[in-house]
Every structure is written in structure tokens, then in C-alpha cells.
């Protein structure tokens, strides 16, 4: 079977399920990825995002559902016949082969002419800025360089789709930022569709065209980074996207919005879904600020200086712990009033 053609229209997951014993790791996932698109699969650990990636790769068999590349059904095709590129979390470089042989491995497996392999490996090395390291063994490279080899090995075959499984999780913070920029650069140069798994929402926001949030094996929201950041579809997604203040409340209609109670204070919020009775209020720490006439009265418990501002935890009058930011100097024991713009107080049904 010939490798998948470079120009496809879309990869489609249709009701994909995967169970391990009695545990459903992936439940009815439906998703389509267009050509050239960068899609991030995110979620807390154990949410099934790596399972989903392995199903797409062909490393795991589906329990139910189907995977299509345009009109070609993929889920009975072995990983070696799908023709996708993959970057593994631990890079999975062949430790006994030089960088050159690692990158050329797939081309050699296809019995391409030696000259062609050498030329394409050199191009890939140049792309990831590793020319000059071709004859080293992976063990002689730093973590960031190994990462570049893994990327070069995945893209040298010019695959229609590149899969990346938490590729930056083994790097330190500084290198992670650097490699993030590298990945963005390589993606824009090659334009290959990419599915990127990460547990780091910031990484997903900065890289992806579209983000898929998986929680407990189910798709909870699919949207652009802006949509996910500003308007999570439900409280679980909000929690994952950094809405640290999640408070149970009751709601009363008031004009366009609703009035909710947070930490003993009444404040207006924006209903995200039709409400009835009990609700959950979600506010980002960045949106909760000390204001003179804020409705919530709270006492600062911990204040951490973060350079430009303070990140703090305060206990409200009713005992709720609230996370917020302050540009003004504050210290533990201070009592202050907190408030948030109504548009940034998101209200979900409980």
C-alpha cells in the first residue's frame, strides 16, 4: 500500500472509542483535522489524550469507531502503512544509530536510493539547525538537540500528518520556550498538519490553530485558543483553562446577566449556558482584582511577589479561598475588597 498522499483534505475521527479492560479511556471522540492545521489535544493527565494520539498513529487498536483520511479508512491499517510522522515524548531515538541513520531510517526502510536519502537527511538536518551533528550518536546530544533530531526524523518523510506526544515535557523551562518557537517555525515552513498532545494549556494556546479539550476520555470542547481562553464551554474546561476560582452559588436573573454570590458578596456575571437553580461561578485570578467598591470582602492569607504584580490567596468572609492578582503591594493580614468585570465572571449550571 502506498503511503498516504501529501495533499489530503481532512483526517476524520468518527466516534472513536478505546477501552482498557473495563475502563473507557476514550469515549466517542469525533474530530476532523484539515490540511495544514495545527490541532492541540489537551487535558489533565489521564484524560485519554495520549490514547487518542496512539489510536491515530495506529499503535493502539480502536474498540469502536473509525478513522478516515478523506475516503480511505485507516483504522485497520498498521502504523507502518499510515505514513504519519511521530515525535515521541521520550524522543525514542535509536540509541545505536547515528543522527544521520536515525533520520534516514524511514527512507532506508522504503529502500530509497542512497543519494536521495543523503540529500533529504541533509535538508532535514538544516531545517532543524543540526548540520554538523550528523555522525553523532543520540547519547552524545543534549536534550534539546535530541528533540530536534526527533522532529527531523518525523518530518523527513514529508508525512501528511505529524503527531507529537508531549514533546517538550522532558525539557527545562528555558529550552521549552525555545523549542516551542522552533516547532512553530518548522510548522509554518513545512505546512504539514500536526496533532499535538500536551497537558500544558499555555503551550496549546501559543501553538495551536484549534484546541480539543479531553476530560475523562470525552471531548469537552473544540475551539480556537481565544474561544477556550475567554469562553470555556463548561466548568471542567474552565478549571483546566486556568479559572482557578470555582465557586458554587445560586443565581438570580438580573437584566442581561445574573447575580451570583461569591465569598459572601453579590456580583453580576455572564451566564454561559441556560441556568436553573444552583450554578458554578468561574473567575480567573487575573480578572479578580482589588477595587475600592468591590463586593467581596476578604483577608489576604498568602501574597507571592511575581515581579510585575502579586499573586495572592485571600479568605472571604464566608470562608471561601479566592485567588487573585494585585499590582498594588499587599501583605498577609490585609483586608481588602475584590471585584471582577461582569463579562469575566462566567456562570455555568452546577
Amino acid at each position, binding site marked *: 500500500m502506498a503511503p498516504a498522499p501529501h495533499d489530503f483534505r481532512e483526517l476524520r475521527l468518527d466516534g472513536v472509542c478505546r477501552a482498557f479492560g473495563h475502563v473507557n479511556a476514550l469515549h466517542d471522540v469525533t474530530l476532523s483535522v484539515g490540511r495544514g492545521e495545527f490541532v492541540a489535544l489537551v487535558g489533565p493527565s489521564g484524560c485519554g489524550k495520549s490514547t487518542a494520539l496512539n489510536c491515530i*498513529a495506529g499503535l493502539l487498536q480502536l474498540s469502536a469507531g473509525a478513522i478516515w483520511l478523506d475516503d480511505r479508512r485507516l483504522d485497520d491499517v498498521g502504523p507502518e502503512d499510515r505514513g504519519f510522522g511521530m515525535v*515521541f515524548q521520550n524522543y*525514542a531515538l535509536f540509541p545505536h544509530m547515528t543522527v544521520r541513520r536515525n533520520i534516514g531510517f524511514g527512507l532506508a526502510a522504503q529502500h530509497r536510493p542512497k543519494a536521495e536519502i543523503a540529500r533529504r537527511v541533509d535538508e532535514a538536518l538544516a531545517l532543524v539547525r543540526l548540520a554538523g551533528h550528523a555522525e553523532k550518536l543520540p547519547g552524545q546530544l543534549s536534550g534539546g538537540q*535530541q528533540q530536534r533530531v526527533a522532529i527531523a526524523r518525523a518530518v523527513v*518523510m514529508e508525512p501528511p500528518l505529524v503527531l507529537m506526544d508531549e514533546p517538550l515535557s*522532558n525539557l527545562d523551562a528555558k529550552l521549552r520556550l525555545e523549542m516551542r518557537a522552533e516547532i512553530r517555525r518548522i510548522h509554518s515552513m513545512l505546512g504539514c498538519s500536526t496533532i499535538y498532545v500536551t497537558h500544558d494549556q499555555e503551550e496549546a494556546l501559543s501553538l495551536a490553530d484549534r484546541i480539543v479539550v479531553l476530560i475523562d476520555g470525552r471531548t469537552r470542547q473544540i475551539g480556537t485558543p481565544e474561544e477556550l481562553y475567554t469562553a470555556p464551554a463548561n466548568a471542567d474546561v474552565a478549571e483546566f483553562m486556568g479559572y482557578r476560582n470555582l465557586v458554587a452559588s445560586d443565581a438570580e436573573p438580573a437584566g442581561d446577566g445574573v447575580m451570583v454570590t461569591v465569598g459572601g458578596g453579590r456580583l453580576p456575571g455572564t451566564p454561559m449556558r441556560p441556568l436553573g437553580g444552583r450554578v458554578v461561578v468561574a473567575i480567573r485570578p487575573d480578572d479578580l482584582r482589588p477595587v475600592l467598591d468591590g463586593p467581596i470582602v476578604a483577608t489576604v492569607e498568602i501574597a507571592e511577589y511575581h515581579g510585575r504584580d502579586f499573586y495572592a490567596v485571600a479568605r472571604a468572609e464566608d470562608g471561601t479561598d479566592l485567588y487573585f492578582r494585585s499590582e498594588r503591594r499587599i501583605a498577609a493580614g490585609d483586608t481588602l475588597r475584590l471585584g471582577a468585570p461582569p463579562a469575566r465572571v462566567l456562570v455555568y449550571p452546577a
Partner: protein
Amino acid sequence: MNGEKPRLRWRLREAGLDGVTLLVLPGVLFVLALFIYPFLYGLGLSFHPAKGDWLANYRRFFSDPFLWRTIPTTLLIAAPVTVLNVVLSVPVALRVRRMRRQRLLTTILVIPITLGTVMVAEGLLTYLGPRGWLNRTLILFGIASGPVHLVHNYWGVMLSLLISGFPFTFLLTLSYVTGIDPSLEQAGAMLGARARQRFRHILLPLLAPGLAITLALAFVQAFTVFPSAILVGDPAGATRVISIAAYQAAYEQFDYSLASAIAMLMAGVQVVIIVALLGARSLLFRGPASSGKG
């Protein structure tokens, strides 16, 4: 002078020598006294034959066909069964690695190792004898017309070495196979390599150093086959292995000098084989069988 003492003590401690280090002494002295000394004693004894000059034992061994032929006889048993055990172990270990419940199988396989060669020999005598279950089965299915003679000959020893040797090589190979990061093979598959190519270019090179050690250990065990060569073999003929010659010299002719010489030759052959295998191993890739730093 008083000031020198603590400083010397600190210097020794820096070099790793202090009271705790002395705890190795009982173990070291024990091995020196009961392993190294007897070995050297035996080496010396082998050069003091009952009659003749200092090399008389070795000359006698290599001129008496009844003695020197034990080396080819032993090699003829040990070499094929070792290679067979290792060659069979690799595909089985690769398969068992993916099994979720390995424990039952590994437990069953550890039984023959635990029972030891004497028990396996007695089991084979009962099971493979002319009226045993195996021959009955072969005749029942028409595979053989009469009882197949599988004990008291070359094949009896081969089978006993297969039964006690295969679990050994298998468990050793399994431990090497499980040391290989599974994502390496997955990476190979993602790059389009077929199962055969993945085995040839990824698994085999990473497994080879471990296989060299397995081969060496398994060979040394098979080369010193003793009770089963007597009990299920033909100890006067096709399975007169070198350990029988050494045993007879010591316990039947009471010629400890000749017996020591044969034991030294046995050790010598083992050393040659091991050095050859490990020398071949040093030519192979010996880094970690997992990728990168993760």
C-alpha cells in the same frame, strides 16, 4: 605526631576506607579461601602428577583418546543445544514481553531450573521411556511405529539440557528484552519499517550484547553437564562428557592430580569461549537500550 593521626584517618575516609569498608573483608576472605585458593591449589596439583614430569597430566590427556575425545563429545552436545535454546528464546521473549500476565508462564518455566538436573533426568526416564506417555502418544497418532529411543543416548542429554536450559536462556533474554524501550519499536513502525525490518535493525542490535552474555552463560552450563549425562545419557560412549572424565579420575582412580588437570582444562575451554563471545560483544553497540535522557 599526634596531629597526624586524625588527618590520616580523614584521608583514608576520603579514599573510601573506613570501618564500614572493612565489612567486605569476611566476604572477600571467604571467597579467597574457598574459591580462589582451591582453584590455585588445583592448578598447582595438576602440575604434580603421580608419575612423570610436570606436564605429564596434560600430555596424557591429549594423547589418550579416551580422555581428549571428551572435549569434542561435550562440544557436540553443548554447542547445538546452547544455540537452539538462545534462538528459541528470542521470539518467545519478544512475544511474552507484550503479555499482560507473564507471571504464570515465568513461574512454570522456573520449575525445571529449580528442580535441577537430577530430577529432570528421573522425570525424563519415566516420561520418555519405551512405555512412557510420549512414546504411547507417538504410536497412537502413527508418528512412530515402535518406541523411539530417547533416553540412555545423545538425545536424552540433549532433551534434558533443553528442558533445564531453555527456561534459563528464556528468562535471561526476557530480562534483556524488557530493558528495550517499547517506543523504539513504535518509532520504527511509524517510520514505515515492517516487523522484520524492526527486528533486524532495531531490536536485534540492541539485544545483541545481552544475547552474547546469555550465550556465554548458557554454554558454560551446558558444557559442564554432569548428572544427566550419566543418568539419561550413554556415559560410556556418546555422552562421555569432560566432567565424567574428571569425576572418574578423582573418585574412581583417586588420581586427584589428573582430575585437577581435567578441571583446569574444563575451565580453560570455558574461558576461551567466554572471551571469544565477550570479545565479539565489545564490537557491538553497548549503550543504554532506551532512548535519550527520559
